[in-house]
Structures are given as C-alpha cells and as structure tokens.
C-alpha cells in the first residue's frame, strides 16, 4: 500500500511515517516501479505498536532498541538482558508515576460533592492558593 493509505489506516501523519523510517523504526519499504513507497503488512502491524509506545512516553531511541531486540535474534544473552532490564526499569518507573498520579486524581474525584463550581474540590485543588 502507498504511504497515504498506511497513514490513514494507522491514523498517523505521512510525515511521521517518513520520520519513523528515517529513524530506523520502520524498515525501508519496497518501491513501486514509479518509485513510490510500497508498504506491506509488516509495516501495518508495527506502526500501531510504535504509536502506542510513543503515547506511553518512550523515546525514539528506546523504541529502536526494543525493535532491534525483536529483529536481531542472534544477539547475545548478555546484550538482551542488558537492554531488557534497562527498559523494564523504565517501564516500572512509568507505572509507578502513573499509579501515584492515579491515586491523587482518584482522591480529587472522591472529594467532589457535585455542587457548584464555586464549591468544587477539583477546581479548588487545581487553582493556585494566592
């Protein structure tokens, strides 16, 4: 499929698709006889993963490492362990941060008495105390 179709199917901007390719996250696609990029099912499967991981705050570099782990099956166990444990630590940190945020937000929602905005604990908490 052409880049426009891939972009549409994955709700990604065409420019973003090209950038992912430039950055080595997407393998270079085949080319049509008229030299248009011609993407396959592999790209279609990989792109949503990249999008979600980006949305979770992973850097392009981190993503490239994760995908390389997948693509190069002949890496040594030491290398795999090193990469995996670094990313596991990063993932755990993100989960911790989100869990903290979640409990703060939950407390905020619990405090809401469903009255007017003037009495609203959510707005009150967000507003500066000056």
């Amino acid at each position, binding site marked *: 499929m052409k880049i426009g179709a891939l972009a549409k199917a994955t709700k990604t901007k065409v420019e973003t698709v090209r950038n992912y390719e430039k950055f080595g996250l997407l393998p270079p696609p085949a080319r049509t006889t008229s030299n248009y990029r011609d993407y396959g099912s592999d790209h279609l499967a990989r792109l949503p993963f990249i999008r979600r991981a980006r949305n979770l705050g992973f850097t392009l570099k981190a993503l490239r490492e*994760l995908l390389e782990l997948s*693509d190069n099956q002949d890496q040594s166990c030491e290398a795999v362990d090193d990469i995996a444990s670094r990313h*596991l630590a990063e993932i755990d940190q993100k989960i911790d941060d989100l869990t903290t*945020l979640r409990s703060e*937000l939950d407390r905020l*929602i619990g405090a809401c008495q469903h009255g007017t*905005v003037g009495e609203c604990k959510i707005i009150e908490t967000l507003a500066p105390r000056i």
Partner: protein
Amino acid sequence: MMIGELGNRTGTKVNTIRYYEDIGILPPPVRTDSGRRTYAECDVKRLSFIRHSRSFGFSLAEIRSLLSLSDSPEQDCTLASTIAKSHLERIDMKISQLEGLRHSLLAFAISCSGGRAENCEIIGALCEVSLPQRTPGSTGIGAAIIRPDFS
C-alpha cells in the same frame, strides 16, 4: 510584570507562555508602548492553574474546559468531575498497556535465559500470541509486543 517574571513565578518557559497565548488558553496580554507583553496577578493565577493541571496530566483541551468552568463559579460542577474521570480512565489504560509491554519484555528475557515458551501460560492473555523464542525462525519480541492489542 514582564514575561520573564511571569515565567519565573510559575515555573514556565517563556516559549510555553507564548504558545499558550497562541492557542488561546491565555488571553493576549496588554503591551507596553514598545510592544512588550505585560502581565497582571490574574495571569499568574490563570497560568498557575494551567501548570498545576498539566502536572496532573490533563490535556490542554481539558484544561481549557476546566478554566472556563472556573470562570463561572455558579455553574454545576459535574463537567469537572466528568473530565477528571475520563482522565482517570486514560491513565488506567496507559498502566495496563505498560503492564502488557512489561510482560512481553519479561517473557523475552526469560526465553533467553533458559526459560521456554511454556512460561507463556503464566504470563496470560497478553502473551497468547507467540512468545519470542531465541531459536531459528522465531518471531521475536516484535511479534509479542506488536500483536497483543493493548490499545
């Protein structure tokens, strides 16, 4: 006060303040004769509200709604609670996506250090697709982390 002082008092970069003005979440400030932006205490309050909301992870669109609510104290506050709840759901989704990714990565590391695909049972639904095995022809971690639909 000038933009630099507003930035200092709220811990906000000058570029970010200009950006907030561009997208209309901060009102255009009064300008000095020489065209420089000047701000008042109400701008400090508004910007602090925005920054504090950002620290809770609210999107700018959500903050815009929260701000407009805070401008009308007589209004019913249900919308604030709805916004916060939908944000909470989004956080839950992110946590579960991260846990899915964690399982896949762990499975991959296990398969490397001598464990085998059987571990997949423990790891559960997310891993029902092929666990990456470090054997010829294996499908790799990409398969494990791409295929499970943790969207």
